[in-house]
């Protein structure tokens, strides 16, 4: 795939490059902030994985290895830009300011999505593969009608590109020039299936068939992802329509904690990708350019440990939902049949309590 485009600004060795098409105006302070984001997001993911292993979560979908793709694109968004995630966009949620413990609710079985999407312009996680790309496109059509200056970003994976909904979203966004950025994290694996089983062409090239630009970026390069996503968002805001970004990255963990990648891929592949780690290259750049010292790195490690510790206590102490929650919120407006079912069940439960009292 060497002939294929790959936008890169920070090499795996931590060398700062320039791409004339994607100039990046960024301060040292901003790069240091991105480094902090990456470390915090990885620490969050490590803690959540540990919580699952200890039985505190029923399942966890790791973002390990995809931090740069998520943080870089998430930090390209401005207030009012709406993000539609899959179930793995913990780094985008972090960038959007969603309280980390909220992301664990559905994995603990407390709820199906425990945050108010409008608080942070970050939609609920969507588990049906690709369905959210249409929601994102529709939301962008709403932005168009409101004549607002915002844009939308739709996240999905390489496997999702095989779904009808994603292809329909491309079509709708294209014909309506909807201000939406399609952000595909190609992490090379859809559970056990390698990218070759989903496509015969590089994913970013698919966009050409729908009539909008596609670009492939080093998904482990937070600076390149930031630059490319900013450019795509600017294009959307200017009324020029959608862009497909293929963030070329790697799922360093399992699909979820229920998965066992050793059954279908070689450990050697993971070792190769470890050399392209999204965090190591930023640290390397900051260190060799003397833009950060040990004190800076230690400070962030300490902050990450505190965040992980709070996450742990928040989720372990989280209250289980009340029984009525099964019935509440199914409908926005009154529903007599559901009300009757609910009160009958509550009465049934109370009949046991009354029995105990006697």
């Amino acid at each position, binding site marked *: 795939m060497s002939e294929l485009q790959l936008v890169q600004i920070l090499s795996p060795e931590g060398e700062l490059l320039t791409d004339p098409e994607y100039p990046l105006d960024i301060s040292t302070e901003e790069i240091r902030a991105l480094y902090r984001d990456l470390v915090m997001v990885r620490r969050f993911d490590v803690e959540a994985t540990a919580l699952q292993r200890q039985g505190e979560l029923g399942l966890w979908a790791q973002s390990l290895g995809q931090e740069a793709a998520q943080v870089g694109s998430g930090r390209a968004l401005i207030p009012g830009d709406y993000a539609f995630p899959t179930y793995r966009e913990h780094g985008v949620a972090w960038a959007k300011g969603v309280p980390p413990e909220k992301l664990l609710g559905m994995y603990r079985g407390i*709820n*199906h*999505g*425990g945050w*108010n*999407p*409008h608080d942070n312009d970050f*939609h*609920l996680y*969507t588990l*049906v593969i690709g*369905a959210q*790309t*249409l*929601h*994102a*496109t*529709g*939301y*962008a*059509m*709403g*932005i*168009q*009608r*409101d004549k607002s200056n915002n844009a939308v970003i739709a996240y999905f994976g390489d496997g999702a590109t095989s779904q*009808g*909904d994603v292809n*329909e*979203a491309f*079509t*709708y966004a294209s*014909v309506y020039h909807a201000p939406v950025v399609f952000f595909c994290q190609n992490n090379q694996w859809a559970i056990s299936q390698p990218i070759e089983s989903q496509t015969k062409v590089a994913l970013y090239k698919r966009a050409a068939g729908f009539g909008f630009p596609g670009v492939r970026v080093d998904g482990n390069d937070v600076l390149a992802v930031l630059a490319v996503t900013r450019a795509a968002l600017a294009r959307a805001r200017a009324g020029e329509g959608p862009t497909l970004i293929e963030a070329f990255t790697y799922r360093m963990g399992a699909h979820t904690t229920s998965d066992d990648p050793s059954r279908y891929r070689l450990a050697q592949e993971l070792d190769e990708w470890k050399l392209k780690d999204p965090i190591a290259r930023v640290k390397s750049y900051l260190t060799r350019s003397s833009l950060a010292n040990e004190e800076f790195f230690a400070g962030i490690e300490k902050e990450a440990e505190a965040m992980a510790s709070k996450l742990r206590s928040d989720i372990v102490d989280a209250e289980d939902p009340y029984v009525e929650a099964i019935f*509440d*919120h*199914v*409908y*926005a*407006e009154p*529903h*007599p*049949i*559901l009300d009757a079912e609910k009160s009958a069940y509550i009465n049934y439960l109370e009949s046991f309590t009354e029995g105990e009292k006697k």
Partner: protein
Amino acid sequence: MITLGKAINMGLRRALTEDPKVLVMGEDVGKLGGVFRVTENLQSEFGEDRIIDTPLAESGILGTAIGLALRGYRPVCEIQFDGFVYPAFDQITSQLAKMHARSLGTLKLPVVVRIPYGGGIGAVEHHSESNETYFAHTAGLRVVTCSNPNDAYWMMQQAIQSDDPVIFFEPKRRYWDKAEVNEEAPSLGLHETRTVQEGSDLTLISYGPTVRTAIEVAAVCSKEGRSVEVMDLRTLSPLDLAPVFESAQKTGRVVILHEAPTFLGLGAEIASQITEECFYSLDAPVLRVGGFNVPYPPARLEEHYLPDLDRTLDAIDRAFAF
């Protein structure tokens, strides 16, 4: 006198006029005015941004409607024919229906899905189905159907005003039925069953396209000395069965008539509930008349499939034989 199709058009126009957030979207709904002309002239009046001709992809219609609703719009989606709704099934049942619940009540999805349904127009395959049960079986959706122009006019507006998703089934073979429409005020709420005509010997329950059949059945029965009470359910989810129970307790005999296959159809649910609520009042088991449990047949056989006057009279005879 206004046709049912025109009454829906008037209801849409009024909703579009009263609320700038209301949108109409679907295949051929704009310039053409819909294959049944239900959305005729709306695009010239409200513009292409509000009356949206969509690409030919049903999941796309529903999925983008959900996004528009999240942005504060109230989309009214048209599925061109009943049999074409399945590509959108995930977006309706897994996304639209569940989003309010999974957001713990923070997201409202005021989306209306219009589906012309049922047979009797000599159509080709996939154009004559009665698939309302799939949606009535799905928590989070509301499902309604109209049987006459006045209900069509008002129920469309009420559906659009609902903050919940509403699947609005339109009886396509009744699009050309004419009746008066009272534009002053609705006679019933969206989720209320109507007693179309009173009777004392048997309750005949129906909805949508077969309500007219039920009225014709009652007229024949009347000549035979049998007084039939005719009920139009109007709301399929939630069901409004209190008036049905009252009627069953009065008459002691119930027949349910619908076009959909009887197996696991709405008639089965209603029969079960009547049995639970009215057991000691019944003089006969609740009987059902409906479509057979087969794929909708070719047009030249549809008269055998569609429950008609004679098959309903036969069921009524059986109810009286107990």
